[in-house]
């Protein structure tokens, strides 16, 4: 877990004091909205469709029980009793009042959290594999890198007014669970001849111009990582376009200049930057690593797990979908689904947050993670404790066994909350999840990632969904476009548009046709949706999505 030193605590306290005064000046009329807006955005405060929204950074999705309880307290004290976990491992409060926000920020500071750089043209919350430090396939824990980057990028004077926002993700495993190829910079820990280093990917991103990132350097040594990344951001900060916000992200810079030219410019810059680092960063990195050394694992019998697995089909179903292999014998990684059928993806009530905090403390070495897939992870749970954990989750309506299945949908807030949205996302996710639960088909369907965005900015990652859904406003009516074949992992791919969009009424039947089509088209029950799509391509899926007119009329 990260730790604030006295400078961090003083910095956050000072920023909070400044913001409190800024709010007072806005309320008194001393500041206009034009003057106040950039100040509130620097502190994560947006004005959305129905209310203000406070976006709080959860550093690389890592929490302990005290922090989770404080998030619950804030939700109850100053919001409507819940929070929304996002695809960037943040939490958003949808209903704060302007005058309450300074108190909310002070409450966050009590547990070493803040909302700084969750908006604006800055380096945003660095995200990481939500199984970090626990995954069986991990080469090294990505969190120390993410923490090093967080300390470096927070209030970095060179990077406060960049051409556009900048997002960095890190994975320590060859299996990419952090969508690193759809970030401005993606970092993957690699090992070469026994030495740990980093593959650096640049120029990925979703939004209106989706791009898969390109490898700019396949092996950056540990001592070079920070100066190298600073060089990348610095080059873009200089040559990135400021004339057009839609062409300002580094993905466009890489696309326009070519990866080879960017690589050469970064190398040039690196030669200047590197001598200035003088090893302080390397010493800090070593110190940070000690803060993430991992829990003291215990040895005990797995008998309770085996008995429950054998005797309780509900537990077995949950264990089969919601557990992931842990690096430590006897342990499992638990994914707690925030996707109960019919509920809002990513939302947790204050009571649920407290339950998860209690369970983390009791069974999970006091660690929790937020995944970019909008679920909560208990990364270290001994298998012996899983039956008791499952029973407690059931009581809190947190035991839905659907991780990776069709109802485990990523959905942005969409037009139910977001001022930028062009259509709703949440009700579409709710309808799909409810329908496939009624059909009792989701386990038969197997792994299938549906991702829904309510506008072209793609916060719901629709481009990299096996099935992507993009909500648009077509002549004053909500309309939903389907993309197929997207992939968010190490084999990242942008989905291909299937054809004309569907109305809000027609999108659920369309998804049903698509899924039934897949069940007919797959080579075996082992072949997943994405594998079938890759084998047979778009055309057979198009045929089921857009049947001849009489077939539609007959439905």
């Amino acid at each position, binding site marked *: 877990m990260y730790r604030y030193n006295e400078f961090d605590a003083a910095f956050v306290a000072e920023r909070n004091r400044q913001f409190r005064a800024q709010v007072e000046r*806005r*309320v008194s*009329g001393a500041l*206009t*909205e034009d003057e106040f807006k950039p100040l509130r955005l620097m502190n994560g405060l947006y*004005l*959305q*469709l*129905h*209310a*203000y929204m406070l976006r709080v950074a959860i550093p690389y999705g890592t929490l302990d029980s005290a922090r989770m309880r404080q998030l619950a307290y804030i939700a109850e004290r*100053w919001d*409507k*009793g*819940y929070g929304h976990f996002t695809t960037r491992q943040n939490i958003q409060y949808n*209903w*704060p*009042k*302007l*005058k*309450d926000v300074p108190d909310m920020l002070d409450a966050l500071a009590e547990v070493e959290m803040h909302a700084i750089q969750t908006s604006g043209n800055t380096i945003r919350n660095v995200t990481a594999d939500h199984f970090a430090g626990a995954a069986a396939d991990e080469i090294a824990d990505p969190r120390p890198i993410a923490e090093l980057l967080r300390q470096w990028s927070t209030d970095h004077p060179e990077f406060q007014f960049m051409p556009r926002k900048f997002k960095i993700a890190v994975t320590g495993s060859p299996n990419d669970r952090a969508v690193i190829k759809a970030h401005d910079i993606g970092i993957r820990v690699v090992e070469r001849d026994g030495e740990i280093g980093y593959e650096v990917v640049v120029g990925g991103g979703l939004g209106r111009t989706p791009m898969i990132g390109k490898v700019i350097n396949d092996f950056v040594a540990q001592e070079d990582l920070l100066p190298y990344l600073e060089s990348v951001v610095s080059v873009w900060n200089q040559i990135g376009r400021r004339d057009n916000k839609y062409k300002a992200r580094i993905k466009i810079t890489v696309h326009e200049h070519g990866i080879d030219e960017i690589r050469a410019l970064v190398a040039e810059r690196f030669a200047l930057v590197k001598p200035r680092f003088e090893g302080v960063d390397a010493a800090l990195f070593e110190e940070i690593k000690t803060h993430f050394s991992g829990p003291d694992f215990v040895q005990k019998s797995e008998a309770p797990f085996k008995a429950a697995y054998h005797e309780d089909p509900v537990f077995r179903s949950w264990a089969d979908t919601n557990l992931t292999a842990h690096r430590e014998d006897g342990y499992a990684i638990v994914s707690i689904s925030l996707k109960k059928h019919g509920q*809002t993806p990513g939302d947790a*009530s204050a009571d649920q947050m407290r339950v998860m905090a209690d369970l983390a403390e009791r069974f999970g070495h006091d660690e929790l993670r937020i995944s970019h897939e909008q679920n909560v992870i208990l990364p270290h749970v001994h298998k012996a404790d899983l039956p008791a954990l499952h029973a407690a989750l059931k009581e809190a309506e947190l035991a839905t066994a659907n991780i990776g299945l069709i109802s485990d949908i990523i959905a942005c807030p969409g*037009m*139910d*909350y977001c001022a930028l949205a062009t259509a*709703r996302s*949440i*009700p579409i996710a*709710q309808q799909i999840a409810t329908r496939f639960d009624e059909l009792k088909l989701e386990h038969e369907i197997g792994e299938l990632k549906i991702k829904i965005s309510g506008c072209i900015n793609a916060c719901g990652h629709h481009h990299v969904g096996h099935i992507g859904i993009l909500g648009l*406003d077509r002549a*004053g*009516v*909500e309309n939903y476009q389907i993309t197929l074949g997207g992939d968010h992992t190490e084999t990242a791919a942008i989905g291909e548009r299937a054809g004309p969009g569907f109305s809000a009424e027609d999108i659920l039947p369309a998804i049903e046709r698509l899924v039934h089509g897949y069940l007919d088209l797959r080579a075996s029950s082992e072949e997943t949706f994405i594998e079938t799509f890759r084998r047979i391509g778009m055309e057979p899926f198009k045929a089921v999505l857009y049947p001849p007119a009489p077939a539609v009329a007959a439905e």
Partner: protein
Amino acid sequence: MPKPFTPKVVTANHLLEGDVIYQTADGWTRNLAEAEILLEQADADMRLIEASQQTDVVVGAYLANADASDDGPQANHFREEFRATGPSNYFHGKQAGALPGPLNGQESHNPSRI
């Protein structure tokens, strides 16, 4: 050729509460049905300017399309419908009870919970 003018209301977010408000003949309301319907371009432009000057009450004033009806202005685009009623996933936006009548700017925190 410019589009013919269609009826409008002036809407914004409340500075302190952040919620959706509408201009009335002599103030602001949280209910679209109580808003002043503007039937002429010049009138709408003038009322928007007046609204935008009230920076101590409102943020982001703009003209929204609306249909005139016997029950007051009605939204005619889904975005404005959601703004007028609240989110569709929980019954805790305006649909949970936007207070009728003029607003005084000092409303207490809405205690509704999911």
